[in-house]
């Protein structure tokens, strides 16, 4: 009798209880589309010879988390009517420059960009916003002042301008 009583008590307090139960919960979040260009540097030309094009190429990290990791680049300058790719100096002097973009790092050739016009689609190999994982860079920006334009510049003047790049994920 005593044994049965102890057994009943044990069952009551759980020593021989029901099977373990699982709790299922949902883990959710929504990730918007992001895009960014990281690692762009100012472009400076100094003591430029006028018999050859002045070229500056730099590799950058262009990253997007779009499903295809594709994007377009729209570039604009601040010359002329406000968006031309041109530099200006005192006295109203200006000089045009060319802008190119490639969807790979260290590219020797780039796709020429027209101011305020979206580029063709590029696909980025960048895996993280600052390229800390995967390739250390994923694209190339190329700025060129043609020799013919260099020859029209006035010496001893500083020409400056701003180039704006807009990255649009696709």
């Amino acid at each position, binding site marked *: 009798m005593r044994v049965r*009583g*102890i057994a*009943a*008590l*044990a069952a*009551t*307090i*759980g*020593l021989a*209880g*029901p*099977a*373990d*139960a*699982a*709790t*299922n*919960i*949902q*883990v*959710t*979040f*929504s*990730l*918007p*589309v*992001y895009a960014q260009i990281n690692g762009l540097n100012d472009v400076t030309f100094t003591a430029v010879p006028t018999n050859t094009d002045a070229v500056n190429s730099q590799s950058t990290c262009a990253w997007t*988390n*779009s*499903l295809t*990791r594709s994007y377009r680049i729209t570039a604009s300058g601040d010359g002329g009517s406000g968006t031309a790719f041109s530099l200006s100096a005192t006295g109203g002097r200006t000089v045009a420059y060319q802008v190119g973009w490639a969807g790979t790092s260290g590219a020797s050739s780039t796709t020429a960009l027209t101011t305020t016009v979206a580029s063709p689609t590029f696909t980025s190999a960048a*895996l*993280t*916003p600052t390229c800390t*994982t995967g390739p250390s860079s994923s694209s190339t920006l190329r700025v060129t002042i043609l020799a013919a334009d260099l020859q029209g510049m006035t010496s001893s003047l500083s020409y400056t301008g701003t180039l704006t790049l807009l990255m649009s994920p696709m």
Partner: protein
Amino acid sequence: MHGETKTRLICAVLAATAALLPRPALAQSANPPLSNVAFGNVTSLSLDLRRAQNTCSFAGVFPITYTVTATGSGTGNAFTVTNGTSTVSYEVQWAQTANAASGSNLTANVALTNQSGGGIVTGLTCFLGLTNATLIVIVRAGQLQQATTGSYSGTLSVVLAVQ
């Protein structure tokens, strides 16, 4: 008082007390139950997503410890969520106190043992709606940065068992 009579009285008190407590084999998260972890829209890729929720775990009057075993819906029960094309890992932690800032990291399908949660006081704690444990789910910023856009979801299963 006669020895046998005293024993019967203690047993009766214990039985009566146990009857008031949550279902004993393990009152898993019954009060309150574990809730879905909905982080909503991600607004920064520089910050971890972190959600902690209190719950009450009770191993029974006599069992004083329990185990926690969690499994995810990813490959091999991994703690992952997916948008259908991309997979993001998350971390799961369990703490033996409420409002814990951090806990023990859980490995998918591996029991976290020796969690303290037995006795009458613990039972009453759960019965009264108080909490004594924390479940924490973390999605690291590094994981978010590598993921493609979309709505991510996955199932996390948590099992508490008397040890």
